[in-house]
């Protein structure tokens, strides 16, 4: 279980996270929603260690994430799909994927994972030797998710996967996440500004505003709460 307690993160004088406590249920999809600047991305970056909280604790499966070096977090079973996809455009599709599995140092497992990812995302298999910068936005998102899966994570963190994608492609990505959660029991934390599509796949959701959690609960209930939707979710 991923557990955040009273996490405060600051950029200079700005409190990006102002005492966030959150328990992420194993095997479920948790959507983190809110407007621009609500602290969603900062929340993810404190979990993977790119931003160190000023105070508070973050633990995953009993391990202290606040003290762990960024390079080590992947060995705890966390995989991160960065905002703007974060594929390394200078490397080929396959090199990007192989990179995701390197930390295990097990060629056979890597080869197996590679096969699984290509099965899950056939367009990537067709372009395995192409540099990643020749991919479309949707393919890049597939590549970023596929690369994260190469590390065989138990917890998948995604930062705005729908950003800049056509609705149809977004729907595909969301369906993939649902499958990972249902079929493999993967825990997914989905940061999204596109609340409507995030709520369509999420089990639970939290809403952030100005660095604080203003609402949390079942995704269906939040989606049905008209006041909340108007105030924070924009639909």
């Amino acid at each position, binding site marked *: 279980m991923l557990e955040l307690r009273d996490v405060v993160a600051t950029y200079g004088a700005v409190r990006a996270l102002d005492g966030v406590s959150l328990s992420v249920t194993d095997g479920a999809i948790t959507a983190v929603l809110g407007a621009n600047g609500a602290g969603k991305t900062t929340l993810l970056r404190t979990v993977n260690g790119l931003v160190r909280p000023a105070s508070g604790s973050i633990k995953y499966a009993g391990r202290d994430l606040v003290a762990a070096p960024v390079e080590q977090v992947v060995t705890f079973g966390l995989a991160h799909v960065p905002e703007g996809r974060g594929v390394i455009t*200078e490397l080929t599709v396959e090199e990007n994927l192989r990179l995701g599995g390197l930390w295990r140092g097990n060629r056979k497992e890597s080869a197996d994972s590679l096969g699984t990812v290509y099965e899950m995302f056939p367009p990537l298999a067709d372009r395995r030797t192409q540099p990643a910068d020749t991919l479309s936005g949707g393919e890049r998102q597939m590549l970023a998710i596929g690369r994260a899966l190469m590390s065989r994570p138990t917890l998948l963190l995604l930062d705005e996967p729908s950003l800049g994608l056509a609705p149809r492609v977004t729907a595909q990505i969301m369906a993939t996440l649902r499958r990972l959660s249902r079929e493999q029991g993967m825990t997914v934390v989905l940061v999204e500004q596109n609340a409507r599509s995030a709520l369509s796949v999420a089990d639970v959701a939290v809403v952030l505003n100005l660095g604080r959690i203003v609402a949390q609960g079942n995704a269906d209930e939040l989606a049905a709460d008209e006041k909340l939707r108007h105030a924070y979710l924009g639909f």
Partner: protein
Amino acid sequence: MNFLNDVIYGAANGVIYAAFALALVLIWRSTRIVNFSQGGMLMFTTFIGWELVQRHGVNYWVGLAVAIIAGLLLGAIVERLLVRPVENGPPLNAVIVTLGLLLVLQAVAGMIWGNGLSSYAPRFSLNYYHVGHRVILFSPDYLFIVIAVLVVLVALFVLFQLSPLGLRMRASAFNPEVARLLGVRVGRMLTLGWALAAGVGALAGVLIAGTAPNYMNPNGFDELLILGFTAAVIGGLDSPVGAVVGGVIVGVALQVLDDYVSNDIDPFFIFALLLVILMIRPNGIFARRTVRRV
């Protein structure tokens, strides 16, 4: 025949510039820094080899191995102590640091080994080959240099393109943050990049030092920086193969100019060439063109 000899002789010299350019390319690839202290670093490690071979009668190959190991260590130390603190700052900071290091290395070498000229005996003969009665401007020692540089090139290709370590190093250079999230120890990869570059530089230094008498001098390798840098820029700074081709282009061009015009024109030509390349193809001749597909 004259022209053919110009090409052969020029290309052989070009391979020397290429060896230097390779070291620049390796550092550029790993840290996006042009290492202006490269000439100083390889001068220093070559002096270490020279000290063993020429002063203490140590075997040539042992001297070469010690120089390369000294290069690996020097590169790692320089990255850790001097470059690391400025790596995330403006690029100019790193430029100034490497320029400063060049001056320090030259001064220290002068203090240890003096500022006079001395010779580093080549391993193989510098006598030209003959075909019938004709002289070919190519010697066993140059053959050794060409082979050594090609071996390094192939080894680098295998390392960077085919090995997991090379993949980690490239990922660290292109996108350090993403590489770290994927479990790559980026700091270590950068140190390794500098060590490798300085090791290649050290090899180049010993090879070059043997090609002419009186080469050994704290400032003896200064000209190489300009020629090697031009070679690297022609190749696009990013491509090891480009560096070698760039080196050969520079070598042949200078030799042809020497023969048909005058060697007074060399410095002018080399800077003009650099300027033209930077104006028309700032990414070098070998930069990968990216085709975007929608």
